[in-house]
Structures are given as structure tokens and as C-alpha cells.
């Protein structure tokens, strides 16, 4: 795996560690993010993704290691860094009592925009996000997808260079998810560097040039999504559940058992197609191996976490 070393990384971490008492939330991670890259941090709940993001925007203090953001040190240069960073939070922390446009105005003033500029940018952003009609609605009256778009709009008010999104589409329906992905791809085309956490493999595959798979506070694998898949797995997977017995397999098929499911891997499609036709169960899927298989291979298919 070859990683190009960017000259001026937006984020550079070496041995970055955060401990909460005995718990190592982030356990010595190394990575760098180049300008205009989109990086996905993948991992199960509690893997340390959110803590890592919070260290980057100075909402948590690191315990050890080195971290620079735009060449500056978080905490010490919180103002300078965060003036260039926009954050989209996992929780809806818009001001629930206010109307949509007002919650953006309040945030714009935190960011230090003057009121005139703020109002102009709010109008443009709401229009771009197709939320203009909702400008006067209270936050409570908005759907989940609208709330998420409004939170993205809020993060863009001060024209940040780095956008951090913590699970941007968790809990949203498929249409809205695809709309948000289109939006994020658009932002990347416009030159933003994007850092997102997710536990949706598809999301990481759709958006990121590189993914970092995290577990127990460590980055256990990183690379381009497709490279990760071809390096670590066969091309095809047949997934079946409720099999009473395992049929005889030829040498080209690898078998794995987890829970009540069986997985058959092969680089050729034919043996799996034959298996598909032969299996008695209806709960069987033949597909390309994807990031989720890689993820589960490294983080385990059990419920141990």
C-alpha cells in the first residue's frame, strides 16, 4: 500500500493518545490528512472516533502524542484553528427554541461574522440547501433530514476549510442519506477538506478517498476503500443463514462461520453461483465483497464489543 505524503497536511497526528482514567479512548494513532481530501473514520461504537474528532477541534485535551491542525496546535491555538474548522455534530444541538434562520444567526455571531454578512450568507445557504421555506420554522417543526442539512449549513457559515462530520447520516432514511452524500461530494469539489466518522461502510465507500478503520482506540487498517477490499478479501461473497450442513466446497472457496450465518468467499463467481443454486435456504445473498466484510474481518463478527 502506498500512501502519498502530503507536503502541508491539514491534520497531522503522531502517537496521538487520549485516556479517560483507565480507558484509552484513543491509543496512539498516526495519520495525516491532505488538503481537499475526504477521509472516513470507520469503527464500531466506542472505537474512539468521536473523541478523535473532538481533540482536533479542541473540545478534548490530548493526553500524549503530537497533533497539528493547519500546522497549529489545538488547545493552544484554538481560536486560529477553529476559525477554519466547521463541525457537524452527531446530536441535534441547534437552539430548539429558535427559528431556523435565527439559530444560524446566533451561531454566525459566535463565529464573529458581522450581522449584515451573516444575514446574507444565511439566506444563500438556506437557498442552496433548499431550506428557504423553513427559515421561519422552529427547529422542532423540522424533519430529521432538514435538521441535518441545517446543521451542515451552520457549519459552513464562516467559510471553513476543514469540515468535520460526526456520523452525518445516522438515523436518516435512504433518500435523505443520498442527498447528504451528494451535498458532501459537492463541498469537496469546492475545495473543502472533509473528515467524517461513520459506521456505515457504504458511506465511507461513497465519499472517502481513504478510510481508517478504528477499533479500541487504534487505527487497525487504513487505505483506499477498494484497495482495502482487494488486499484483504476475495472478490465475491456468498452469505447464507440457517444452513443445516455445509456442502462440499472446492479448493477455490473459503468458508467462515459466525453466529447463525455462513460466509463463502471466492475470487471467481462461478463456484459461488453454483453454491447459490444448490443451497436449500432462501436467506442467501451473492455479492461483491465490500468494506463491511473487511471491517468485520478485522473487528470481528461477534457481539463482543
Amino acid at each position, binding site marked *: 500500500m502506498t500512501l502519498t505524503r502530503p507536503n502541508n497536511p491539514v491534520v497531522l497526528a503522531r502517537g496521538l493518545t487520549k485516556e*479517560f482514567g483507565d480507558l484509552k479512548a484513543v491509543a496512539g494513532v498516526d495519520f495525516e490528512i491532505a488538503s481537499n481530501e475526504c477521509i472516513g473514520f470507520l469503527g464500531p461504537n466506542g472505537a474512539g472516533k468521536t473523541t478523535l474528532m*473532538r481533540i482536533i*477541534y*479542541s*473540545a*478534548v*485535551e490530548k493526553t500524549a502524542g503530537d497533533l497539528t491542525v493547519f500546522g497549529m496546535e489545538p488547545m493552544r491555538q*484554538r*481560536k*486560529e*484553528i*477553529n*476559525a477554519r*474548522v*466547521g*463541525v457537524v*455534530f452527531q*446530536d441535534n*444541538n*441547534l*437552539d*430548539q*427554541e*429558535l427559528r431556523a434562520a*435565527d439559530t444560524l444567526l*446566533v*451561531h454566525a*455571531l*459566535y*463565529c*464573529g*461574522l*458581522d450581522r449584515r*454578512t451573516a444575514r*446574507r*450568507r444565511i*439566506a*444563500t*445557504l438556506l*437557498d*442552496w*440547501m*433548499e431550506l428557504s421555506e423553513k427559515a421561519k420554522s422552529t427547529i422542532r417543526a423540522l424533519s430529521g433530514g432538514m435538521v441535518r442539512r441545517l446543521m451542515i449549513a451552520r*457549519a*459552513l457559515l*464562516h*467559510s471553513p476549510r476543514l469540515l468535520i462530520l460526526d456520523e452525518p447520516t445516522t438515523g436518516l432514511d435512504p433518500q435523505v442519506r443520498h442527498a447528504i452524500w*451528494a*451535498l458532501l461530494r*459537492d463541498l469537496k469539489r*469546492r*475545495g473543502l477538506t472533509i473528515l467524517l466518522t461513520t459506521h456505515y461502510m457504504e458511506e465511507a465507500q461513497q465519499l472517502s478517498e481513504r478510510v481508517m478503520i478504528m477499533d479500541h482506540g487504534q487505527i487497525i487498517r487504513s487505505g483506499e476503500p477498494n484497495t482495502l477490499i482487494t488486499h484483504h478479501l476475495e472478490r465475491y461473497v456468498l452469505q447464507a443463514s440457517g444452513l443445516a450442513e455445509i456442502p462440499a466446497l472446492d479448493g477455490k472457496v473459503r468458508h467462515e462461520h459466525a453466529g447463525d450465518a455462513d460466509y463463502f468467499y471466492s475470487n471467481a463467481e462461478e463456484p459461488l453461483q453454483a453454491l447459490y443454486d444448490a443451497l436449500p435456504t432462501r436467506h442467501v445473498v451473492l455479492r461483491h465483497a465490500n468494506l463491511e466484510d473487511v471491517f468485520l474481518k478485522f473487528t470481528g463478527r461477534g457481539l463482543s464489543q
Partner: protein
Amino acid sequence: MNTRESPELAELWAPVALRTGLVWSLFGVWYRHVRVYCQTFLANATPPILEPLFFFTAIAIGLGSYMSKGLFDGLPYPTYVASGLLVASAMFTAVFETTYNTFVRLIYQKTYDAMLGTHLRISEMFIGEMLFSATKGAVFASVVLLITLLFGVRPTVWCLFVPVIGFLTAYMFAAIGLIVTSYVKTITNFSFFSTGVITPLFFFSGTFFPVRGHHWAIDTISMLVPLTHPIELSRALFKAEFTLATGMHLAMLLAFIVLLHSISLRRMAKRVLR
């Protein structure tokens, strides 16, 4: 998404000038609280205005009518009570703001998380919050003054400084509230503080009767009680009588503010940066 590229949209991605200095940051936080408060103004402001009125009518007017018409610490009894109650109302509004309301913002609404995503310093977030509480204190103290004037309380020209006393009192108690909040795990814990600390302060800091002059030990304790000093200052305004003791009360009030301000910022930084 809209595909047409308007000049406004193109401008959105260009760098924009940000005013990240202290004053603008404090204004931003203050403005947020004012804006949210005004959104639910009636529900927010009615109880804290009515409560001192009930105390005033029941005690100063009701109970007071059974008292001799002599002076209380140099003042008619209704004026004596009014000068204390306006300070107490500033205390109540500030303490409520930075205990229950701050806790809700911290745990349920995650308001400070949203602020942490910006350039705001944690000190700016909470100084802004205390300034908002202090603003409310200034307004509430003035409103209590104006209403009690309708009941025949006699002001002096020095009462123009009532908003200042309300502001300082509320700033001090906002800091106390933040310190308490920084330790509290669940919202029900606040009832120990309000019943165990705020209620006794309200009754035993000279709002309704002079606490000092009975025993030297009580006098000493009362000097260490934060509410004593603004009440004494408020009384000086109504008496238009300024002595060395008045200066000492002002000095004590300012000393309390400086001390509690710095403790509260350190505590909240610890609480928020997790």
C-alpha cells in the same frame, strides 16, 4: 441541490472576515441567551417577577402593618424590605439561570458542544453567560424597585444605581451557580443547593430584618455571606448615607466577584472539556 451558480453562492466559499476578539465573542454568547430567553419571555419572566411581589405584599405590607411605625435601620419597614428584595430577586434569577438552565444546556441541549465547535474560548462562553445573568439581575432589580414604588416605597436619587447593584449581585451568584453546576451529576441535586443554601441566604442575609448587632459570631458570619454586601449597598442607596462601612461592603462584593468568577471559569473548563 440548485445547479445554477449565483454570485452569492460563489461568494459562500471565499474566505470571510471574522471578528474573533473578546468583546465580539462575549457579545455573541450574550446575544444567544437573550434571543432564546426572549423567545419564551412570558414563561421565563413571570414567576421571578411575581415572587418578590408576593413577599413584599405579605411581609412588608401585611406583616408590616402590625409593626410600630418606627424606623428599621433608619428606613420605613416597606422601604427596608424593598431594598433587600430587589437584591434577592437578582440573586434568584442568576442562580436559577446558571444551575438548572446551564445544566439543561450542558447535558440535554448540548449548547456548549455547539459553541466548542467554534473559535469561542471556554472562558468566553461562560463569561458571556454570567454577563447575561447579570443583565437579567439589573433588569429584575429595577422592575422590583419600580413596582414597590407603586406601593409607596420612597426612593432617593441614589436609587438610579439599583441596576448596578442588581448587575453585580447577579454576576456573583451566576458564578456561584456555575461552580455548583460543575459538580452536579443529576438535575435533582440542585434542590439541595436551593433549599440548603439559597433559601437560608434569602431569609438570613438581612432582607427582612437586621441580622447583625445581636452577637459578634453572627456578625462575623454575616460578613462572609455573599448576599449581605449587596443588600447593605442597596440600603445605603435608599438611605442616601455612605460611610466607611459602605465602602467596605462594596470592596467585599467586588472581591467575592473576582474570586468566584475565576473559580467558576476553571471549574466549567474542567466540566466541559471532556
